[in-house]
């Protein structure tokens, strides 16, 4: 597989240099792999830190800025960052009221963020954590590492970020983040595997005419392989899987998310089908976001995330945000 890179070893550092050049409103520490909003620490406000393997852009670095994350820590491609990164980020953004770690539920992310929390607490920084585990494709049982964190991460980062921006205290921002996670469910499909720079070939073989149902965001295969389906059938399957797991009483935020290589034209068409199914199932839609937000390198495919919102969560969703990847109201 061809890639627009120099050598696999420098992919993350190169991207950070390019990000620094494009976004003077961010401080990008290329050496230590920490992206911080330029005006950090912001006095009196809880700071949000997230991170994870690279390859999911704009998540997380593209969500750093007023109204969302204070800092992001990118690991190697699909590899959780190391504790030193989050500890350094915490020192850079903490202004006193503490920091909230937003952690996608993967063994590596959990272990590294937990170690970072210990390091930060040693420095006297108050740390709280929200674990995101919204992927209904994974059975949450004793026999798995639990549900993965995928598209719901965007909702948690945006809504908790708005709460922090309002000056709410750490326990409250944490509680809101947890509530958003509990209210969120995702399901993803792949029409192609992706190719990591280190491996240089697709992470799995998917024959023409088949698709993977229930994929994550790390190029791992899904739960099931089936004969290719139409956009409408996929929408029924994905929304169906989510609604089997959650019965929204409130309106939902809808994220129709591209995995990276599926054109926006197709994503919008897929959204039409998702909305049709939601209407048929009697689910009211408050807001819809369509685009490539939580990606898996050059994987073709899409995921659907629904997040039930009451009035407060909707107000926080609508609140101003100013990041490279998500921007409105300012």
């Amino acid at each position, binding site marked *: 597989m061809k890639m627009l890179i120099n050598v696999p070893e420098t992919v993350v550092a190169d991207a950070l240099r390019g990000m620094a050049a494009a976004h003077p409103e961010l401080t990008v520490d290329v050496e230590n792999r920490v992206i911080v909003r330029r005006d950090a620490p912001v006095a009196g406000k809880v700071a949000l830190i997230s991170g994870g393997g690279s390859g999911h852009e704009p998540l997380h670095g593209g969500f750093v800025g007023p109204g969302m994350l204070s800092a992001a820590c990118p690991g190697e491609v699909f590899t*959780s*960052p*190391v504790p030193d990164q989050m500890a350094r980020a915490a020192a850079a953004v903490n202004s006193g009221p503490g920091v909230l770690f937003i952690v996608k539920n993967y063994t590596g992310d959990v*272990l590294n963020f937990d*170690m970072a929390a210990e390091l930060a607490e040693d420095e006297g920084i108050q740390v709280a954590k929200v674990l995101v585990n919204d992927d209904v494709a994974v059975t949450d049982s004793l026999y*798995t*590492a639990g549900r993965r964190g995928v598209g719901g991460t965007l909702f948690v980062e945006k809504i908790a970020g708005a709460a922090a921006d309002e000056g709410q205290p750490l326990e409250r921002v944490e509680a809101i983040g947890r509530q958003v996670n509990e209210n969120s469910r995702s399901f993803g499909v792949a029409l192609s595997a992706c190719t990591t720079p280190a491996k240089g070939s697709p992470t799995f073989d998917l024959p023409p005419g088949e698709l993977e149902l229930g994929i994550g965001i790390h190029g*791992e295969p899904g739960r099931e392989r089936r004969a290719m389906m139409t956009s409408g059938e996929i929408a029924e399957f994905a929304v169906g899987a989510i609604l089997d797991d959650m019965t929204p009483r409130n309106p939902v935020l809808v994220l129709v998310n591209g995995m990276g290589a599926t054109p926006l034209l197709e994503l919008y068409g897929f959204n039409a089908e998702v909305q049709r199914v939601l209407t048929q199932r009697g689910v009211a839609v408050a807001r819809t976001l369509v685009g490539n937000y939580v990606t898996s390198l050059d994987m073709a495919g899409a995921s659907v995330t629904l997040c039930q919102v009451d009035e407060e969560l909707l107000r926080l969703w609508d609140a101003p945000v100013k990041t490279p990847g998500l921007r409105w109201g300012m």
Partner: protein
Amino acid sequence: MLDAEFFRRWMTATAASVDREAERLTALDSPIGDADHGSNLQRGFKSVIAALEKEAPQTPGAVLTLSGRQLISTVGGASGPLYGTLLRRTGKALGDAAEVDEGQLAEALRAGVDAVMALGGAAPGDKTMIDALVPAVDALDDGFPAARSAAEQGALATTPLQARKGRASYLGERSVGHQDPGATSSALLIAALAEAAGE
């Protein structure tokens, strides 16, 4: 008796075999993971070697705690904290003796493996590195070569298992039929121990 030099040789031999086998480890991590295990460990052990050269720790315990800290700070992923904890706890258990015997090493390694199980929550049979490490520690009383074969057997025996921890567990039944990458790298680590002992 095993001195700091022995432990340095262990790390050097591990780094070399991880380098040699990196592509295979990444390939094993592809069908049931995210295709990074080989490059993760390569990056980690490269920095272990650099740190050992730079800081030149003088005791077995110091060699391993430094190596473990280095893995934690450079690998990331699941294997970084887990292997980092393995070496760090093993090193701590060895204390600051200038030399240790094989029995002390076996005991310390068991403490390290216990710490990995406590941290990651995996038990034998969950299709993880634990499936190579536990049999290796059990066999260590019979010498390094016995530990090496036990680790290799353990790694091979992960193939028919269904994963219950780590990324592979997301696949459910589809994880069956693939050898676990972490168990495979653990077998390399134990083989390097035998190599360091010249056996």
